């Protein structure tokens, strides 16, 4: 089972991003679950979502304690939350960063999702849309297929710039 923990702030689209990644895995023919962790959330507060992907039906509902991959949609969260808590020794980290932030001890994939969205003017209610470029980045890492990534975005968002954002993130993320 491949387990992903996604850290974001309320309003950044982290919960939707988790659903979209799981949906892409579903389209790839896998079993997948996306779970938001709800507390006293409000706009701007740190929130966590979980994604599980497996070849077998998933029977686990509890939180992910030892993720294979950690995604950080807002790097300022790293000052408040230990995003690496429990990460597997070979666990990887994707960070939305404009300055190429890396973490020690784990392979880090910085990608400027915010910059990509802003350059395409992909802004919703004042916030750059991060989940569509994120899907491009996750596809680049081979966790979901390119075809499913495209299908998920085109089914969910009418605006063609979302596909463009995913493609740019796909190109930008170095593996």
């Amino acid at each position, binding site marked *: 089972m491949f387990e992903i923990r996604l850290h974001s702030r309320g309003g950044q689209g982290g919960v939707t991003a988790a659903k979209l990644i799981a949906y892409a895995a*579903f389209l790839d023919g896998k079993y*997948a679950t996306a779970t*938001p962790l709800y507390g006293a959330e409000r706009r701007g507060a740190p929130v966590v979502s979980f994604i599980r992907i497996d070849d077998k039906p998933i029977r686990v509902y509890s939180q992910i304690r030892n993720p294979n991959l950690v995604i950080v949609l807002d790097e300022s969260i790293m000052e408040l939350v230990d995003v690496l808590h429990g990460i597997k020794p070979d666990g990887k980290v994707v960070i939305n960063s404009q300055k190429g932030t890396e973490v020690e001890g784990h392979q880090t994939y910085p990608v400027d999702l915010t910059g990509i969205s802003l350059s395409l003017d992909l802004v919703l209610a004042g916030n750059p849309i991060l989940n569509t470029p994120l899907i491009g980045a996750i596809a680049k890492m081979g966790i979901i297929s390119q075809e499913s990534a495209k299908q998920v975005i085109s089914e969910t968002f009418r605006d063609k710039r979302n596909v463009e954002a995913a493609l740019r993130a796909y190109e930008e993320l170095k593996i």
Partner: protein
Amino acid sequence: MLTFGTGNKAVAMAVRDAKPVVVAAYPITPQTEIVEEIANYVTDGSLDARYIPVESEHSSMAACIGAAATGVRTFTATSSHGLVYMCEMLHMSAGARLPIVMANANRALGPGWNIGAEHSDSISMRDTGWLQVYVSTVQEAYDATMMAFRIAEHTDVLLPVMINLDGFLLTHITQTFETIEPGDFIPPIATPHAIDINNPGGYGTLTPGNTHFKFRHDIERGMKASIPVIEETEAEFARRFGREYHLYEEYRCEDADVVIIAMGTLAKEMEVAVDILRDEGIAAGAIRMRWFRPFIVPNLDGKEVVVIDRDYSFGYGGVLAGELQAKSGCQPFSVIAGLGGQEVTYDDIAEFVRIRRPGTEHWFGVDD
């Protein structure tokens, strides 16, 4: 059709496919998505029903009662405080033998204020005469909702059915599920005592002491009769649609020395705990209780029993553990865990089995 969505969405889609004529509802976290989705289906025409937004849960059940009394299919959804607020109407709907179907997103009751998963809301409605089923996957949320209409409306039963799904853990998780075209799997509703303007009758009349008990006893007849109806419905569902359900689900129980028993999502996660224990050489098994009313007792002869209750009856104990003990004579290790969305993992569940002390109670997270 294979699709992907939340537990809430699965319930809403099952309701759309089961085609009720009246849906009356009041929103409450974490079930709101169910009634929002249904309202969308009514608006876009994919469900030809009257959607009645009401001012409270008491009124939503009252509206369902009024509609169901005319002999039409009805649905509502609620949770927690909403459920206990409609308590009076739950007794009314069962007593009037109206086959209303309702989804309940299991959630704690406050104070202290908490919106996490807990079964205390539905368990406290135990004696209303409603059938109660507890589901553990998004697929099962869909399937159980579909089957609920057939079971409730069966003329041997004519009792309302509550589908219980763990708040957030199941209402908000996104999983793969398959929708079906029910066809005549759910026959047209034919409530024998439906209001007929051409044949006026009395409703809600006085039943004095020399007759009232007969009506009460008749509810129990319906409840008892529901067991073969549930079994027949589940068998027919499996035959038509390929997915099997039973009164309770056993996992690796054949040669088990110790079985863990629970309801809801915990009861699915405990299968993983059983696998861990088996690897350690402990002959563990799991029984997921699906129906709480009617209460169906598994054969526990010769097995040690660990019961996890996501509920509590103050001054008594874990309700599921107590009922199993009373009906089967087992001496369970009664674990109280998961209240208010308390995090319980498969490792925790495996540990409950390792530390079991038959006949005692253990509150997870509380130092005994």
